[in-house]
C-alpha cells in the first residue's frame, strides 16, 4: 500500500553538520578493519545520546560488552540471539506507558542491532512480529553475509557461490547454493513506514537514512552492508573499497522504501562488472568464469526487478 509518510522531523545531514560523537567508544574488541562496528558508529552518531540500544547476540555484542568493560555510552541491553526485536518492543512499550503516566519525561530513540543470522534466520519471527505490531523503533541489520561470530558459517544472507565453513566449496559444491534472502523487500512487505539499504562506503547516505528512520512514526528497517575482512578473506584496510564495489557493481544497490514507494538514493551510471567485486575476496576465489557469468546475470536480473519496483510504485497514486 502506498501512503504519505510524515518526514517533517528529518533534517538533512551534510559534511558540514555531520554529528561527530559516536555512542560506541574506541577500545572495543572488533577485528582490524571491521566495517560493521564502523557502521554502528555511524548510526549512533545520528541517533545521539538520547538513545536506548538493544543488541542481538553476535559480533557487535561480544566486542562491546565483556564485563567489566563496556564500549557503550548509552543505555544498552543484550538478552539473546533471536529476540532483539521483541526486547525492543518491550522497551518501547514500557517507555510509552511510563511517559503516559508522567513517570518519565523524555522520548528516547530505540534502536535494535542484529547481524544477518539474527535478522534473516533465528530472529526473523520476532522481527516480523515487532514490525507487524508497529512499535516505534529502528531495526538495523548489520549484514556481513554469514555467522561471523561463531566462525563464518553460512546464513540465509550468504550470497550464491560464497564458501563458508558450513557451505564449503568443494569438488561437488560451488559453496553456498542458494540465493540471498531479500530482507529489505520482506520488511517492506510489512507495510512499515521506512525501509532502506545503506552502505558505510556512502556514509552521508547512510546517516541521512538513519535520520529519516528515526523521524518516522512506527517501525523502520535499515539493511546495512557490513563488510567482514576476517570472514570474507580480504585485507583489513580494504573494507570500504570492497563495500564501495558492492554498490558500484549493482550487487548492493542503495535505495529506500518510504510509505511503500521505492527510490534509488544512489544510481550507478556505468556499473562495474561483478568480477571486480568478487575477485579480491577469498570466499569467491574458487569460482569459474562460468560461475561469475551466472552471478552477473543474477545481479542484473535483481537490479532490473528493483528498477521495476521503483517505476511501478512511483507511477501509482497514493491511497
Amino acid at each position, binding site marked *: 500500500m502506498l501512503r504519505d509518510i510524515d518526514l517533517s522531523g528529518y533534517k538533512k545531514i551534510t559534511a558540514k553538520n555531520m554529528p561527530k560523537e559516536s555512542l560506541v567508544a574506541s577500545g572495543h574488541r572488533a577485528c582490524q578493519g571491521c566495517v560493521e562496528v564502523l557502521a554502528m558508529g555511524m548510526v549512533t552518531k545520528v541517533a545521539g545520546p538520547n*538513545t536506548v540500544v538493544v543488541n542481538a547476540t553476535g559480533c557487535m555484542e561480544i566486542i562491546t560488552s*565483556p564485563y567489566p568493560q563496556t564500549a557503550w555510552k548509552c543505555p*544498552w541491553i543484550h538478552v539473546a540471539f533471536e529476540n532483539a526485536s521483541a*526486547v525492543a518492543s*518491550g522497551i518501547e512499550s*514500557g517507555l510509552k*506507558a511510563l511517559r503516559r503516566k508522567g513517570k518519565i519525561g523524555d522520548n528516547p530513540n530505540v534502536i535494535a542491532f542484529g547481524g544477518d543470522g539474527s535478522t534473516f534466520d533465528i530472529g526473523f519471527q520476532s522481527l516480523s512480529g515487532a514490525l507487524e505490531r508497529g512499535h516505534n523503533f529502528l531495526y538495523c541489520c548489520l549484514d556481513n553475509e554469514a555467522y561471523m561470530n561463531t566462525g563464518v558459517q553460512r546464513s540465509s544472507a550468504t550470497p550464491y557461490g560464497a564458501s563458508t565453513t558450513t557451505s564449503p566449496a568443494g569438488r561437488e559444491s560451488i559453496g553456498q547454493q542458494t540465493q540471498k534472502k531479500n530482507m529489505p523487500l520482506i520488511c517492506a512487505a510489512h507495510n512499515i513506514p521506512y525501509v532502506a539499504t545503506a552502505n558505510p562506503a556512502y556514509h552521508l547516505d547512510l546517516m541521512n537514512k538513519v535520520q529519516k528512520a528515526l523521524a518516522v512514526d512506527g517501525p523502520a528497517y535499515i539493511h546495512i552492508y557490513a563488510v567482514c575482512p576476517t570472514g570474507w578473506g580480504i585485507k583489513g584496510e580494504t573494507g570500504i573499497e570492497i563495500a564501495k564495489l558492492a554498490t558500484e557493481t549493482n550487487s548492493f544497490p542503495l535505495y529506500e522504501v518510504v510509505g511503500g514507494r521505492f527510490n534509488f538514493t544512489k544510481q550507478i551510471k556505468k556499473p562495474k562488472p561483478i568480477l571486480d567485486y568478487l575477485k579480491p575476496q577469498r570466499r569467491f576465489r574458487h569460482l569459474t568464469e562460468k560461475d561469475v557469468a551466472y552471478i552477473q546475470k543474477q545481479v542484473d536480473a535483481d537490479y532490473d526487478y528493483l528498477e521495476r519496483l521503483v517505476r511501478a510504485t512511483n507511477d501509482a497514486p497514493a491511497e
Partner: protein
Amino acid sequence: MLKRVGIEVSLAVAEAVRLARADVISAYPITPQTHIVEELSHYVANGELDAEFIPVESEHSAMSAAVGSAAAGARTYTATSSQGLALMHEILFIASAMRLPIVMTVANRSLSGPISIWNDHSDIMAERDIGWVQLFVEDGQEALELSMAAFKIAEDHRVLLPTIINMDGFILTHMIEPIEFPDQKTVDAFLPPFEPAMRLDPAHPVSMGPVGVPEVYLEAKKQCEQALLDSKPVVKEVLDELNELFGRDYDLVQTNGKDGAETRFVTMGSLGESVYTAVEALNAEGKDVGQTRIRLWRPFPVEEFLAACKGAKRLIVIDRAISPGSVCGPVAQELKSVLYGQPNAPEIVNVICGIGGRDVPIEEFKEIYALAQAGKLEKTYTLWGLNSNA
C-alpha cells in the same frame, strides 16, 4: 474493604494485575492461561487499566518483551502455560540473571507428547533452576492475593527477582469460586509503585546483559543464587503483611490435620485440597495422619519444611510430574535432599498422580494412605492409577 464475588479464578488473577496497576502486559494465548490475558486486554481496551498490552507472536517474545519492559522500568506482567513456558525457557534464566522483577502466572499444564491441555506440574518442574521466586497457590482467594503479593516480593530491592505464581490449569484457573476483592486504595497502600534499582535511562546509561568471561561468570551466578536465597525472609514478610491486611494465615509451608502426626502427606498446588479432605476424614476415623503444604517452592524453605514435618516417621509425597530416568518424582527428589543427614529423618513414600489431568478422587488418597501404612507402595515411586494395559 473486601467485596465477595463469585468469579472464575483466572478473572480474579486478571483483577489482581489490574489492582496492581501493571504498566505493561505481554501475552501470547495458550490454554488454560488464556482467560487471564483476555480479561486484561479487555481492561486495557476499555480504559480500566492504563497499560500497554503487547500481543506478541510467541511466548519466547512474550518473555523477551517482558525483559525489555522491566528493564525500561515498567511494572510488567505475563502469563503462560506448558509448551509456552517451555518456549520461554531460554529467556527465563536471563530475566533472573538481570534481576528484573517480572511477575508471571503459570497455569500449570502437562507437556507434549502426547499433547495434553490438562493439568499436572511437568511444565514448571522443567523450570526448577531458572532462579525465579516460585510460589504455588491452592485456591482462588490465594491466587488473587499472592498475585498482588508477587509484585511486592519481586520489586523489593532486597529481592529484585522475577516471580512465578503457579496455579493448576483448569482445576483452578477455570473454577468459579467466591472470592473477596480488596479495593484499589487498600492495594495501593500494600503495593507501592515500582522503583527500579536500575533502568534503561539515557540520563544514566548502563549496559545490561554483557559478556561474562570465565573470571566473572561464576561470581555472577553466585550473586543470583544468593539473591534467591535472600528472598525467603522477604516472602515471609510480605505474606505476614498480607495476613494482617486480609486476615489470612499464609506461610511458606502450611500444615493441616493432626499435629505431630506419624504419617504426613506432602502436597503442592490444588490437589492439596483433596488431600486435606481425605486427611480430615482419616483423622475422624482416628488415623494418625497430617498434611504439609509447600507454598514457596523456590527458594525451597528448608527450615520451615523440617519444622512442619517434625515428628513424622513417614512422608507420602504427592508428585505431579514424572522425572524420567530418576529415582522418584521431582518434589520427592527435593525432599530426599533436604532430609538427607537429618536426625530421625522420615521415610519418603512417593506417589506420582494426576498426570495429564487424570482425576484423583478423595477416596484414592485414603487408599494411598492405607497402602503406605501397609508398606505396599513401591520403594522408589508409585505411578498411581497406571492402566496395566497401556
